[in-house]
């Protein structure tokens, strides 16, 4: 529909009548020839890396040095980068904690927590693992003054940042927290008056406000650790304008108080079971890898999907009642939904 003109004089703006005619003519000329469609070449970015060295670093923590089987140079990376390690049971991300200047080996550290990390702990020198990356979700920026706050295995992305800060001759401090010294990796690589080791055994559970203190103007604070620690530091940081806070924006929070439900994908007729601890999007993604989503936290609206049947339990203020739902957070109110997918 050609729109009216801008000043209320004509029902159809002559400018757009002309543009529309041009577009139509161009399309008709284009249609005289068959469309040119190029074959899309698949790009495989996975790498097979050999475990060069396994070293215990603390109770339940090992570090792995990884290199290319033929010893060639690996893709470059910057502090804050991680690798996606593809294991039979799933994919996990590990921060690179070596030296970016070492182009022939990556170093990662793994704490034994559950299934996937146990698989990682079972690796021996000479084993081969598949990885993707490096990718950066925690970029480190040049500055004059840094405060690093690390909790437990959260020390891994901070280590190369500390090295970079030292090379920049910046004024830096590190506060490294953990339950006890036995459980804290890389203590041997961290020494000097700029480093403060803080254990729950000696000092009790840390207060995030105390950790942060009152950073001097111009300080860049980099924080990595368990989610409650990052939330605490964010809250203590508040809206101060003379310093900046950097933290890794993790994947979405786990589903809280979810009930299992069933989704019917109307276009294919497939029925999927969504367990209590997974989102509808996660389950649909396994079935339809090209489904569109982005923030996975219910604010960007990319995954909004038409609901054909069923009541929606809306879990985001951005999820309006418009016959659609945000499948990344919202769930079924009564056990069953039919979606236009």
């Amino acid at each position, binding site marked *: 529909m050609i729109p009216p003109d801008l*000043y209320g004089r004509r029902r159809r703006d002559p400018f757009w009548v002309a543009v529309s005619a041009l577009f139509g003519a161009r399309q008709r000329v284009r249609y005289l020839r068959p469309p040119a469609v190029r074959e899309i070449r698949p790009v495989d970015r996975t790498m097979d890396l050999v475990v060069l060295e396994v070293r215990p670093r603390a109770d339940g923590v090992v570090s792995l040095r990884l290199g290319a089987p033929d010893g060639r140079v690996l893709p470059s990376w*910057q502090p804050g980068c991680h690798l996606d390690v593809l294991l039979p049971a799933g994919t996990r991300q590990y921060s690179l904690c070596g030296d970016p200047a070492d182009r022939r080996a990556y170093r990662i550290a793994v704490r034994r927590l559950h299934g996937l990390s146990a698989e990682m702990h079972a690796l021996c020198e000479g084993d081969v693992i598949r990885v993707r*990356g490096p*990718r950066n979700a925690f970029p480190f*920026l040049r500055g004059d003054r840094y405060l690093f706050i690390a909790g437990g295995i959260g020390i891994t992305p901070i280590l190369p940042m500390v090295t970079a800060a030292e090379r920049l001759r910046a004024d830096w401090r590190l506060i490294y927290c953990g339950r006890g010294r036995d459980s804290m990796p890389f203590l041997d690589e961290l020494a000097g008056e700029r480093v403060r080791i803080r254990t729950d055994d000696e000092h009790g559970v840390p207060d995030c406000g105390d950790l942060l203190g009152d950073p001097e103007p111009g300080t860049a604070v980099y924080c990595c650790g368990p989610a409650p620690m990052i939330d605490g530091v964010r809250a203590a940081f508040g809206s101060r304008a003379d310093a900046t806070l950097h933290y890794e924006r993790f994947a979405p929070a786990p589903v809280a108080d979810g009930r299992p439900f069933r989704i019917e994908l109307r276009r294919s007729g497939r029925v999927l079971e969504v367990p209590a601890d997974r989102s509808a999007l996660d389950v649909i993604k396994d079935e339809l890898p090209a489904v569109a989503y982005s923030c996975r936290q219910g604010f960007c609206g990319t995954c909004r999907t038409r609901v054909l049947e069923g009541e929606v339990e809306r879990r985001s203020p951005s999820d309006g009642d418009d016959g659609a739902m945000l499948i990344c957070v919202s769930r079924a109110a009564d056990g069953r939904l039919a979606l236009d997918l």
Partner: protein
Amino acid sequence: MTVRLEPEHLVLQARDVRFDWADVPLHWIPGDPVATHLINVLHMLLPAGEEWFVRVFKEALPRIRDERLREDVLGFIGQEAVHASSHDGVLDHFQEQGLDVRPFLRQVEFVFEDLLGDRGATGDRARAWLVERISIIAAIEHFTGVLGDWILNADALDAAGADPTMLDLLRWHGAEEVEHRHVAHDLFMHLDGSYAARLRAMAQTITMLTLLWSRGHRFLMARDPLLNGRVRGGLHHLRRTGPAGLTPDRRMVGASIVRYLKRSYSPLGEGSTSQALAYLAASPAARAARR
């Protein structure tokens, strides 16, 4: 030892920003409605334009044969969706201040929904049309990256006393445009990559953007309730506002087009990732983002 720190391989994530427009004046560059409205045209083009990017990119998702590119495209879509809704907030604020922009918005919607919609193509024609639209988005994204880099460095706007909330919106948006400036080009190169198509897309984009910008500025200057049509709008004003640093300069944009036309063009050569990330770390809106 030299330290190379320009971050690469970024994971792109949308930021859940909020802006409060209540105290932003209509002429947010004080005393300069001409320059204010030259930038305001963007607020009218971006919501419909960026929603169109999102629709086209969603359509392209099933065709991508590169995991990393797919992740980049997903991050891009989320950022663009939040951009579109943030600029919508500015438009509501215009409306509240008695500047009725709806007639122009209808025309912008016509461009992005009818002219550049799916046009009823099917099969291979639909695919060719999808790739052509992606080539246009890649050309537009060249400009958003260049403008993003410009706004991050536009000290003249601070010196002119421009409204801080508006500057934060423009710079947050500009910084994310710089952050994801490679995605549309990468997607086009993955799906097609033809140099001729890139040239065609740039020619169409320059024509359309110039016409829309010029018409939009004349419209805003005519409709502004405080001006009553006393000053006629048009892109000739860039001769003053460009060199004054209040709007992008024609020469700067022209030089970037010449770079785009080279076969060796890489969007990463435009703007600085470090600078964009540094702004995002300091931006009041990005910092207040809940996620």
